């Protein structure tokens, strides 16, 4: 470190002088009177800011952005993370800046996307030591990853790419092939989670391009799918505000997905959702007309009924930011977790008392409905502040569960027994 405090003195003196000047100027020129000024017109419906109330409590809430540089391995809050008895939590990898979506290759490589940085990482093991390799950079919010038959699919904000035979070329990845770039370029809810279904199609959601609006349903707020070569792009279901996690039931093959509810309506409403796409179910999940299956939007809900839309199979708490989810199909965890869904709840920002900031487990009934939602991995939230924020979960071949943390740029591993 080349910092030397002594050399700062001149700078500090100059600074104090300028500060004193600014204070003097302030004293001489009182600010223009705010009283008597006409109150500001609220943002128009449809605006990204619509619904944001002008109260003191609301004014204290703002989205929380993590630092860009990952937390050093020995400073990670892994000791604070608590799983049920019999489970062990450890650091799997540090130095994975803004770690988001997780995928595993056939040879055991762990792929990690990012949202605020421009990188995709590969975590590998060499001589018993874990390595973090940057396999792509210069990408625009490369949050979404999928792995299928040797190829890594990467979703930027508006483009999906494919890196063939990726695990054979981690040190010099091939030039990617463009799969499809026919997606909106909007920043709000533009980052993507992607996955490849049992139907061998690539599923790509497009979020609502605002907190709350009523956009063209053929362009926004839905889940699309396409063939792996990018052809046949179609809208599968509508009324989805922003899903950042989904997976297919191991036996029924139905798609379950998380969806984030709108902000600024209230501290406690609406809740985030766990949804299921079933053959018999409706193909519209409510946004922007109906939230959480039973609550009409105060603006867009008039003249509509929640009965028109497919209700969620579980509610996941207000503003909790339920993101990545996977069915557990491994052998390592006790039988009660078989075919249950692990869901990473990133944690609320749009709420005074923070909620989420954990991994919960949703256990299902034989008919695919949800029996219970229980805490699984907790401790990310301490004194109403996040010490870590879980984004995605991914089962490893041995049945252990990886959890990404975009706040510290780390991946944790939860194992049982052994």
């Amino acid at each position, binding site marked *: *470190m080349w910092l*030397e405090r002594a050399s700062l003195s001149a*700078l500090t003196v100059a600074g104090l002088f*300028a500060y004193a000047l600014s204070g003097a*100027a302030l004293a001489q020129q009182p600010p223009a009177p705010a009283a008597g000024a006409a109150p*500001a017109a609220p943002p128009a419906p449809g605006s990204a*800011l619509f619904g944001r109330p002008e109260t003191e409590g609301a004014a204290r809430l703002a989205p929380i952005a993590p630092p860009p540089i990952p937390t050093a391995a020995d400073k990670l809050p892994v000791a604070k993370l608590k799983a049920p008895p019999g489970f062990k939590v450890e650091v799997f990898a540090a130095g994975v800046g803004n770690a988001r979506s997780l995928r595993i290759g056939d040879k055991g490589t762990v792929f990690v996307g990012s949202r605020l940085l421009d990188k995709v990482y590969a975590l590998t093991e060499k001589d018993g030591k874990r*390595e973090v*390799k940057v396999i*792509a950079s210069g990408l625009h919010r490369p949050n979404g990853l999928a792995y299928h038959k040797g190829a890594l699919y990467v979703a930027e904000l508006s483009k999906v790419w494919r890196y063939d035979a990726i695990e054979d070329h981690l040190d010099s990845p091939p030039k990617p092939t463009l799969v499809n770039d026919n997606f909106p370029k909007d920043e709000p809810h533009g980052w993507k989670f992607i996955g490849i279904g049992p139907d061998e199609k690539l599923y790509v959601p497009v979020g609502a391009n605002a907190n709350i609006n009523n956009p063209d349903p053929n362009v926004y707020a839905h889940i699309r799918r396409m063939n792996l070569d990018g052809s046949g792009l179609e809208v599968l279901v509508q009324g989805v505000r922003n899903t950042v996690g989904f997976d297919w039931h191991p036996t029924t093959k139905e798609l379950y997905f998380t969806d984030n509810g709108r902000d600024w309506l209230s501290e406690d409403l609406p809740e985030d959702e766990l949804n299921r796409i079933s053959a018999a179910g409706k193909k519209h999940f409510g946004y922007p007309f109906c939230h959480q299956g039973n609550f009409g939007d105060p603006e867009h809900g008039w003249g509509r009924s929640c009965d028109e839309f497919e209700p969620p199979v579980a509610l996941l708490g207000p503003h909790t930011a339920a993101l990545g989810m996977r069915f557990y199909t491994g052998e390592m965890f006790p039988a009660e977790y078989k075919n249950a869904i692990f869901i990473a709840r990133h944690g609320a920002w749009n709420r005074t008392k923070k909620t989420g900031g954990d991994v919960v487990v949703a256990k299902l009934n034989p008919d695919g409905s949800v029996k219970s939602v229980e805490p699984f991995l907790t401790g990310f939230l301490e004194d109403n502040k996040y010490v870590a924020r879980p984004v995605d979960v991914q089962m490893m071949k041995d049945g252990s569960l990886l959890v990404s943390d975009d706040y510290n740029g780390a991946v944790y591993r939860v194992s049982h027994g052994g």
Partner: protein
Amino acid sequence: MAAEGSRAAGATRAGRKRSALPPLLLALALLSGAPGAARPEPLAERLAPCLACHGETGTSETPEVPSLGGQPASFLLIQLYVFREKQRIAEPMNELTKDFTDDDLRALSDELAKLPPPVPPTIGAEPARIEKGREVSARHRCGFCHNPDLSGHDQIPRIGAQRQDYLAKALREYKSGERRGYDPAMAEVVQEMADADLAAVAHYLAYWR
């Protein structure tokens, strides 16, 4: 897009050695006009190229170059990082930061954050535009994230008394998508703002006291 070769164990450059310094030295010498800048150790010298453009007292006198005074260290760190990684493009900044280690970025951010807040210009204020800008700022809730006194906090910058030309440029670039931002928050705010509103709010913020 550009695929890049792997950097083994090196998502961060915390482990980089000081051997990466010569290009920086060159840049320093060129920018500060100090032919004898042989040893970079003293902080004042390290800061010199920053302050030459951004202003020694926290207030920038350089067109379209922002004042750094009173900026939160977390915000400064993010900007230095995205300059180094070329996630944000501004050639002099990309060049200056390209060989900095993570520790360099942290130290510079912490030090720059100690500069006193910028002082607004004493001439040029247009009361009608300030009033319009105040209305736009209230409607778009600038003070919600940037603090009611526009001083910023954590990763959110101070915007009160920032240079007008810089604010106008930044807002325009957020709207056009030229500047992506670290978090997409600003893109969301400006996407439906009229150009005249952007200009008015820049004027209002620049004369903020």
